[in-house]
């Protein structure tokens, strides 16, 4: 299916741009890196504000607890590394030093998911959303494209409290219908429809839109919801969508057993019984390969979303 025609942009570049602006506007911004400043692009901030950037070396645990110390001293801290090393490796440091005492630390993680490609399973974390979602006090944000990444960084800087913000390595399609009014904790409707709701997060949002266009040809009118804040989940938008359309498909570049789809499923089970299906990575580790090939192999294409839609539509029909 063709998203080749869409303009693609780097989420990392837009994050770097937002961070640089914040650095210029606010003296309380401090940035921490762990020997990946060039990859996560905190190097852009470091160049202009060397005195407010600290590269602690390959010592992520140290970085997270240092971040907490800075926050306890009134700083707004951005700590950035690859998602694998910024969550699982430092779970307890985040838990005790940051989430429990509600420190004003923003963990900005790049290189999440299988789109990492060649580096393989050790670097392709597919369970980071689950880990961060499990923590009380933590806000979890997964922007859908580069411009939204910019908006989300600006928004989390204004919010006081711990945040985990996740993005991938690869450039992602820019979505025209995303508006400039990003609100933390609010899902946005990118496309209206009455037959089914496709809920996407991150790189899967553009795939939901492509799937929705295809589904129109079959006479299926799909609503597309961009769930860019995964915690707290926008329950209101979710339940409204489920009630309006009567069927839900979720799509995420993350383990399907414990991610956004799982969060949605739990909420629907308690609040709105509609047929639903989750698209995502099965309960396995990733592997090396070309990103697009991996997205196909692990079932993360618009076709997979369409198939899932057919499934929920069948069940919805049966239930009626």
């Amino acid at each position, binding site marked *: 299916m063709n998203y080749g025609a869409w303009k693609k942009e780097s989420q990392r570049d837009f994050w770097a741009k937002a961070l640089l602006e914040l650095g210029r506007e606010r003296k309380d911004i401090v940035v921490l890196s762990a*020997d990946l400043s060039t990859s996560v692009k905190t190097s852009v901030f470091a160049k202009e504000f060397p005195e407010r950037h600290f590269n602690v070396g390959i010592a992520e645990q140290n970085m997270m607890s240092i971040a907490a110390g800075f926050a306890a001293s009134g700083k707004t801290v951005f700590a950035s590394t690859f998602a694998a090393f910024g969550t699982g490796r430092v779970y307890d440091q985040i838990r005790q030093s940051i989430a429990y005492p509600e420190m004003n630390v923003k963990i900005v993680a790049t290189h999440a998911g299988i789109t990492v490609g060649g580096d393989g399973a050790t670097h392709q974390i597919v369970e980071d959303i689950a880990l961060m979602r499990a923590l009380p006090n933590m806000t979890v944000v997964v922007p859908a494209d580069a411009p939204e990444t910019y908006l989300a960084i600006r928004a989390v800087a204004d919010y006081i409290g711990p945040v985990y913000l996740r993005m991938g390595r690869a450039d992602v399609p820019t979505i025209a219908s995303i508006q400039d009014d990003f609100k933390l904790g609010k899902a946005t409707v990118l496309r209206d429809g009455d037959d089914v709701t496709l809920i996407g997060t991150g790189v899967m949002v553009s795939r939901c839109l492509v799937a929705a266009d295809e589904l129109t040809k079959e006479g299926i009118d799909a609503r597309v919801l961009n769930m860019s804040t995964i915690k707290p989940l926008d329950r209101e938008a979710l339940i409204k969508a489920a009630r309006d359309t009567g069927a839900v498909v979720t799509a995420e570049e993350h383990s399907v057993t414990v991610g956004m789809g799982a969060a949605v499923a739990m909420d629907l089970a308690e609040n709105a019984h509609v047929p639903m299906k989750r698209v995502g990575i099965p309960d396995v580790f990733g592997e090396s390969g070309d990103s697009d090939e991996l997205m196909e192999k692990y079932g993360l294409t618009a076709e997979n979303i369409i198939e899932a839609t057919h499934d929920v539509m069948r069940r919805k029909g049966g239930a009626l």
Partner: protein
Amino acid sequence: MPKHSRELIGKLEHEALKIRRRLVRMIYQAGSGHPGGSLSATDVIAALYFHVLNVDPKDPSWVDRDRFVLSKGHACPAWYAALAERGFFPIEELDTLRKTGSRLQGHPDMRKTPGVEASTGSEGQGLSNGIGMALAAKLDRRSYRIYVMVGDGENDCGQTWEAAMSASFYKLDNLCAIVDRNLMQLDGPTKHIMSLEPLADKWKAFGWKVLEIDGHNFAEILKAFDKAESVKGKPTVIIARTLKGKGVSFMEGAVAFHGKAPNEEEYEQAMTELGGEP
């Protein structure tokens, strides 16, 4: 101490050159990977696989084999090339590095690749893996040895020092660590990112026998491995001074080639410098 023959050293130099050609080609074909740290590690890995290690390519899981763990997993192209040259799997398979479905993952996968002893890639864990293996050998009264290569950047990791402390506490004289002291990490020179010196004193203070050598000089490498084997009651660390990107002029000491594949033109130049395609 046995002196190593010119013939042996000549053979190792030859093997190392072959490994360098192969790994640069693999990374070029994959379009991504880590040439710098692979090239700095090559000579030590060649010495291990073509002289030091008691391994059987036909029986990679033979219980009494010596073990090698590459803690700095991103340098695995050098390891894969050595394993293939030693006959653990077909040479042709090297061209599948990092491709979908390949047994040769971007970072070592012990469940996929014959001869790979530990899955690594997230830095700082391999030495601890080696300690488990060394303790198991002692428990089972087996005499195999364990070799673990760590990057100098991995000396930033707290876990490296947790491991260092426990290895000497357990008196693991069957364990030998090699620090690939190429003076660089991902973001730049170690002394600008997180200064490590005095590194030898740190390892000494943690209870290790410390040997400092030129990690591209086979006479020194072999002598150090002999010495490590003779040290009793404590683990030995060999701090091997190396050059990141060793053997390809424009990769030598170049931060850019920590984690970047050469383009076509660079590949051709690299092959010319290394004496032709493998």
